[in-house]
C-alpha cells in the first residue's frame, strides 16, 4: 500500500466504511509510515474541532427571526390560496355574465326581429320559428328555410313569389298569426 492509497483508506476509515481486512492493511502501513500516521492524527483532531469548538453559533435572534419568517410565509400561502379561489370565483362570475349577456342579445334580437319583420324569428330559432307572413315570403326575407329541407313552409317559385294558383287575401292582416303556419294548413 502506497501513501496515496493509504490516505484514501484513512478517509474511508474515518467514515467507518473500511472492512476489517482493509483496516488491517491500513494499520500495517501506519505502523511503518510516520507521515500517514500524522495525517490521520491531524485529521482526527481537526475534524473533531470543526464540529465542536470550531462551530459558530447563530445569533440569539435566530429563532425569533425564523418565527417571523414563518408567519410571513404562512400568510403569503394563505393569500395565494385566497387569490386562487378568487380566480375561480372570477371565472364563474365571467361565465355567468357572458351567458346572461348572450341570453339578453338573443331574446332582444328575437323581439326586434319580430317587431321588424313579424313572425317568430329567423330559421335558426327553430323550425316553428321559420314561419312568417305571406308578405314576408314575397319579399324573400332572409332566414327562410330553403325548399326541400324539411320546412313546413310552402315552396316558393324562382321569382320569390307564391306557387302558381295561390291567391292572396288582401283583407288579411299583414302580420300572420302563428296559426297560419301550422303544418298541413293551406294558404288562402
Amino acid at each position, binding site marked *: 500500500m502506497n501513501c496515496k492509497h493509504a*490516505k*484514501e483508506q*484513512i*478517509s*474511508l476509515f*474515518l*467514515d467507518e*466504511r473500511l472492512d476489517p481486512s482493509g483496516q488491517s492493511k491500513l494499520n500495517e502501513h501506519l505502523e511503518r509510515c510516520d507521515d500517514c500516521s*500524522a*495525517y490521520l492524527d*491531524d*485529521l482526527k*483532531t*481537526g*475534524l473533531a*474541532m*470543526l*464540529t465542536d*469548538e*470550531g*462551530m*459558530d*453559533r*447563530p*445569533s*440569539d435572534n*435566530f*429563532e425569533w*427571526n*425564523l418565527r417571523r*419568517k*414563518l408567519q410571513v*410565509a*404562512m400568510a403569503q*400561502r394563505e393569500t395565494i390560496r385566497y387569490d386562487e379561489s378568487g380566480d375561480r370565483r372570477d371565472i364563474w362570475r365571467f361565465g355567468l355574465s357572458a351567458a346572461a349577456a348572450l341570453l339578453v342579445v338573443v331574446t332582444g334580437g328575437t323581439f326586434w326581429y319580430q317587431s321588424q319583420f313579424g313572425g317568430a324569428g329567423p330559421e335558426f330559432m327553430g323550425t316553428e320559428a321559420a314561419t312568417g307572413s305571406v308578405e314576408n315570403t314575397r319579399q324573400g326575407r332572409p332566414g327562410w328555410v330553403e325548399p326541400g329541407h324539411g320546412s313546413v313552409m310552402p315552396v316558393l317559385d324562382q321569382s320569390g313569389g307564391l306557387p302558381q294558383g295561390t291567391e292572396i287575401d288582401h283583407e288579411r292582416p299583414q302580420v300572420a298569426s302563428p296559426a297560419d303556419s301550422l303544418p298541413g294548413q293551406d294558404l288562402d
Partner: protein
Amino acid sequence: MAIHPQERLSDEDLILLVQEGQKQAFDQLVFRYKDRLFNFILKMVRDPDLAEEIAQDTFVRAYIHADKYRTIARFSTWLYTIGLNLVRNHMRRKKRSPIGRIPMVGRADGEKVEMELPDKGHQPDRDVRNTEMKTRVAEIVTKIPEHYREPFLLREYGDLSYEEISAATGLKIGTVRSRINRARSHFRENWVASFGTDADTLV
C-alpha cells in the same frame, strides 16, 4: 430534569407530527439542527448574516412543504438537501452579479470612487463567539475548493452517508468518496499551515 416527550422522538417521528398539524414538533427539529445547518451554510457562503438567512429559509421551506416529506429518506438528508439547493441558488446569483458592480460614490473633489462595503464576516455587534480559533477553522475550511467542500461539509456537519450525499448533490457515490478524500487532504494541508502538526498545543 424532566425530559419533554418530543425529545425522545426521532426526527422522522417529529416531522410526521408536523404533517399531522402538531406545529410544536417543528421547534424540536429547529433546536436539533440549527447549529449544524448554520455552520454548514456558513462554511459555504462565508457570511454569517447570509448564512442565518439561508438557514432560516431552509427551515421555512421544510415547514411549508412538510407534507412533501416521505419517510424513504432521513429528515436530515431532506433538510440538508433543501439547504444545499438554497446555497447553490445563492452561488449562482452571486456569479451572475460580479463584484465589479460596487456602487460608486462621489468624493469632495468630484471624482467618483467605489464605495467601501463593510466586511460582513467580522461584525462586532454579532452575538457570536468569534474566537481566533473559530476564525482560523473557518479560513481553513473555506480554502477548500468549492466542489470538494460541498460533500465534505455535508459529511462533517450533516453527518450524511455517502449515499445520502450522492442523493443530495446528484454526484455518483464514487465521486462523493473521492471528493471527500480530496477535501480532507486540503483540510489537513491548511490545518498544518495554520496550527502546525501538533494542534492541541495551539488551542
